[in-house]
């Protein structure tokens, strides 16, 4: 019997009428002995890297090894925001490239990732903060990224239900709006990339945990796994919160501490908030999913942990922010909160590229930015793996940048991983 493998409204109708089956989204292959590239980590970044390796560089003899189920890490635990409002040289271009890839992704993958560009408004609560946003906005404009600076009355017209009362603790002064920012259905990103990479011949191997790296002199030549030894021309570590853990298997120490970032969602309600809003008084961001839940998050818990469950006081902190920002949030009810393990680096920016060990590559240290970076991270890492040299967009993210002193501290928070 034929199966449907291309997704479309027509295919849905065919299935409804004739009961035709859908093809599996991706195969469940046994690992082969040797690949050109082995990617450790079946999250968004690893899968995107595999997809672009196969689709843009003709390298499809690729395996993606995932310890648990595909997409079990941060790609399915985040607050789904995408944006490109960055000001540091290098960051602006990288995240804009990412947003442009997001804009074509559903078509590219033939999988609806539901990019919803309803915009993001970052609020300022004082004149100095508005100057900081002005710098960011001017930089964006000068790099071809649309945005607008709002004063208080603009904000009030745009979102009349924020707290403009006289007893507001941190009155709203203005904001910076990026219309192309928005949200993406996060799980769909992992599935969409996996399905598209699989179609191009990439082997996606779930329940395959890497326990060590194979060495050939001063180079890495593959991995040792619970499903046997796998040889690889080049090996990429792309494991989000476990970068330190996996890199140590290869003898590398990284400028990374693993912290917990929590996410929160309320019960679904009818349309309540149309865009993404970021509070300026504290780190807090909120949007409404297509299903209707209010999705929000804040700062990391503040100490390193691999437990994937957060501390309760953070739930109160973000709830306070929610009500301080939108008083009507008070009667909505929190449905779930959960945590992801997040690599924190001294400057809040990631590491991408070659490592000191030959043929071993790293993509990690994403702090708060991993999800929105997914397409560009995959794009740039695929280029880097294919050419053995960093893509121009990620040259500022080298793993040894602190030795040279050129950190990329987007938020100006200083040295501390646990404050970034």
């Amino acid at each position: 019997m034929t199966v449907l493998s291309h997704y479309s409204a027509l295919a849905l109708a065919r299935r409804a009428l004739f009961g035709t089956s859908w093809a599996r989204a991706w195969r469940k292959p046994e690992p082969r002995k040797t690949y050109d590239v082995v990617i450790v980590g079946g999250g968004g970044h690893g899968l995107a890297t595999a997809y672009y390796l196969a689709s843009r560089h003709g390298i499809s003899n690729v395996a993606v090894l995932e310890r648990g189920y595909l997409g079990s890490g941060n790609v399915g635990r985040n607050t789904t925001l995408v944006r490109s409002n960055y000001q540091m040289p290098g960051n602006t271009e990288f995240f804009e490239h990412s947003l442009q890839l997001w804009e074509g992704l559903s078509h590219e993958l033939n999988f609806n990732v539901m990019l919803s560009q309803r915009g993001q408004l970052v609020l300022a609560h004082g004149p100095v903060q508005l100057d900081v946003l002005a710098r960011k906005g001017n930089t964006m404009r000068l790099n071809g990224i649309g945005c607008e600076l709002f004063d208080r009355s603009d904000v009030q017209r745009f979102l009349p239900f924020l707290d403009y009362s006289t007893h507001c603790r941190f009155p709203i002064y203005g904001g910076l709006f990026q219309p192309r920012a928005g949200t993406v259905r996060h799980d769909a990103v992992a599935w969409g990339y996996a399905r598209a990479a699989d179609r191009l011949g990439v082997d996606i191997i779930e329940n395959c945990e890497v326990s060590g790296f194979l060495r050939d002199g001063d180079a890495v030549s593959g991995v040792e796994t619970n499903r046997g030894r796998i040889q690889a021309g080049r090996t990429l570590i792309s494991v989000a919160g476990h970068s330190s853990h996996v890199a140590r298997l290869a003898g590398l120490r990284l400028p990374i501490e693993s912290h917990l970032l929590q996410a929160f969602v309320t019960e679904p309600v009818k349309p309540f908030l149309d865009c993404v809003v970021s509070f300026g008084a504290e780190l807090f961001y909120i949007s409404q999913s297509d299903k209707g839940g209010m999705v929000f998050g804040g700062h990391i818990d503040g100490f390193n942990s691999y437990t994937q469950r957060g501390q309760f006081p953070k739930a109160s902190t973000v709830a306070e922010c929610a009500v301080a920002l939108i008083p009507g949030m008070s009667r909505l009810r929190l449905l779930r909160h959960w945590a992801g393990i997040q690599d924190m680096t001294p400057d809040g920016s990631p590491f991408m590229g070659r490592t000191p060990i030959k043929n071993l590559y790293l993509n990690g240290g994403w702090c708060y930015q991993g999800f929105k970076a997914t397409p560009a991270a995959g794009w740039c890492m695929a280029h880097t793996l294919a050419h053995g040299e960093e893509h121009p967009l990620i040259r500022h993210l080298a793993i040894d940048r602190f030795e040279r002193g050129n950190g990329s501290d987007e938020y100006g928070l200083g040295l501390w991983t646990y404050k970034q």
Partner: protein
Amino acid sequence: MTLGTTRLSIGGRINRERALAFRFEGRSLSAYQGDTLASALLANDVHLIGRSFKYHRPRGFMSSGVEEPNALLTLGSGARRTPNVPATTAELYEGLICERQNAWPSVEFDLMSITGRLASVFEAGFYYKTFMGPRRGSWMFYERFIRRAAGLGSATHLADPDRYDTRHAFTDVLIIGSGPAGLAAARAAGRSGCRVTLLEQDFLLGGSLLTASTESPDEDLRRSLEADVASLPNVEILRRTTAIGVYDGLTVVWVERRESARPDPAKGEAREILVTCRARAIVHAEGALERPLIFGNNDLPGILLASAVRTYLNRYALRLGKHILIATNNDSAWATGIDLAATGARVTLADERPTANASLLESARRAGIEVRMATQLGQARGTRAVRGAWLRTEGAAAQWLACDLIAMSGGWSPTVHLTSHTGVRPVYDNIIGAMVPGPWPAGVSGAGAVAGAREDLLAHGHKVGSGAARSVGASGDAGDPIPGSPWTMGWAQPVQNRAKARSKAFVDFQNDVTTNDVVLAYEEGYESLEHLKRYTTLGMGTDQGKTSNLAAAQLMAELRGSDLGASGATTYRPPYTPVSVGALAGRSIGAHFRPTRRTPLHDWHVANGATMIEAGPWLRPWFYAWAGGEAATAYLAEMKLVRGGVGISDTSSLGKIDVQGPDAAEFLDRIYVNHFASLPVGKARYGVMLNDDGIVLDDGTTSRFSEFCYFLTTTTAQAGEVMSRLEFLLQTAWTDLRVQVLSVTDRWAGMSVAGPLSRRALTLALPGIDLSNEALPHMGVSEHVSDGMPVRVLRLSFSGELAYEIYVPADRGTAMWEMILKRASPLGIKPYGLEALASLRIEKGHVAGLELDHRNTLADLGLAKMASQKKAFVGRELKERAELTAPERWSLVGLECLDTTARLRGGAILFAKEDPIRGHGRGYITSVMYSTVLKKSIALALYRGGLTHRGEEIVCASPLRGEQVRARIVSPMFIDASGERLHG
């Protein structure tokens, strides 16, 4: 047949003496005290309670408790409108207002139910496969309709008029749940003598005991248990209280609900109270939840869980049907049938098992129940209510049975939600066919059904309760378990294959996930339970899969041909039941969102025309009314006063640290890049400290009042961090240094008296103090006692003018401030605010605020010469890293605007004259002001190559404002570069 509810004239746990009126979609209805909203609506024959999320199928009540997936209503109105409240958990109160939701135009006639007709298109995950065309952004078109169709109830944007409180609690043994095991555990632990807290989400104690008839011996048992526990003074019983989460450190968070008592916020009464409790031992006694059976159209109104049917009968005196089918795979539902039959209903019982034990069969026979063993419910039929079902008995043709109520039981699942919050993964118990909690961590135990107990729940609860008490050191005698009939669970046998139903058989009722959807997910490769959940949305509803997760897991395990134990459990996340965001926030909202730090002079400022502004946690005077009505102009008048006469400003928010001890000088030499050991007593010095990475951390002046005693100041923003850092170095790295540091920020009120007339002003104000250049030169400090008040005078200047900082004890701050203003009034002294303070320093080229952005080096700020070459200091080595010493770094410059009609703007991006205006430019403007001295707009900026470009003309681009302004790079020290004013 139609549904018909009979409120029985006797029995139940309702108060027939107290009728309560409530409004349902504008209709006035009445029920009794003791009713939930669900029983009240059922008593008024309201059965169609909502439409399902996706297919808009008619839905009725399925349960009588927190697991309810269907009966979500919107309660209240106006600012108190609250969507998605399960009617089964809402205690009825006089005047309650409610309505149904998620249907258009109405629940009775919902046009959206067309989606149900098109169900084969709207299968699980359909939206991943379509809505992509014709263009790239087309999703945004479809999304508008989908967003409107999604969501359950609608919420209000109005501020919540109700009050929420938070509380902290401590107890020895915390028991979650007051069913038979929980009550027995509380009784045993209480008798042992320790502090016990018993939580019950319901407004009555008893849990599953409440399903029994008030005429049965079980009621006597419940009453005596409750009386025993209530008689113990060391046992705290909290009703209407839900444990929402269990966290590390034996911490349990619960919510106490007061809504049914109609709290009055004006009287300080809270709607909900959030409590964080640290227990020494936790006893889980959450019991078990009954599972629905999976069969075609199992979501029709009139199909309820068997335990719910029994609860409505025995607790609320409601018989929900006359011709009743009990469909079960276990013993527990038989009691429902027997109780119903006793009211005269016609009861047919279909049990999937080939046989049941003889005593059950005998009781059923005596009750007049028609029992059909080895019989499965194949499919129910009905349009807006159930009217019958096809039964399939092994070896026989399917038979139609007309009925108006189906009570189903698919067995029981221990309520392992809270038990798994701290990472204890549930494990599959083959014998009872359900997930049970994994190994208990230290300090945690489980009593009764939640632990999968096979034995008498009362005895089990007693044993666990006394064990928990012993574990916290209680030595009293727990006594014997309460006597009474054994109370055991009717655990089910594992169920059989139910895949591929012909009509929709729901697994997750709220999110409309059918068995076909599970099969589809399997076929497409979404086999892992987490993939299944995320692909089909199963278990993601407001009920968090309380009735669906296990059935789905079983179904998937069958499809995969694997053992359920191997595929594991899904992860349950807090909260156990949804909790108001308002309760989580408590009182930390509005003005109390965060603490406000006020200086000792705050009240004076407010009373004397200051407009205050937030500066981090502080409120500081921004500008004063004497100078104008808005900051943009007032600061000019205030600056003019300081440049030409004398002004006074409040600097109390600066961080202030006493550094004392024989090694204080050595310590300061280590933390500052410049020398402090050489600072003479009676002098102050400006210092800069770096982080270990060589980046500037903070700056400020430090004064030496005696050989071993220094007074260090930090910026307002960094005060806390610097203090912690100093303590860190002394307590970890340099434990040999004999130094103590103490934050004295709040001890001193600080004020700066600045301007060419400042010496004269202070001489008038403090006539006993010699302020002559000889006695107190620039950077000189002195201590005095004036009018019995200790006074510190520091001749420091932030503004570039002759200036003094005066410090007095915080409680004398206002007195000193007023005295200076009064005595120096002949000189025209007036207060000036933060905007003028910040602008004065810009004119003088002092870095602060956005220049100190945690990215720059000493050299970037023009301070490279300060670093000692003769001593070590924190950050010395790493500041030498290659990129930090590169020549083309963004460094501090001054800018003068060249266009007289234009203004420089904060955040403008800087370009050389010849540059194309795009990209990141060569720097940006950090601080701007209008200089009353230079009569032009000036700025501080960071610019690539810094002052090596002095004199060059550049372009300041602010595309956000559509502006490009020309400016010249100049020294950041705009005025008085030689420092004559300071030494005046």
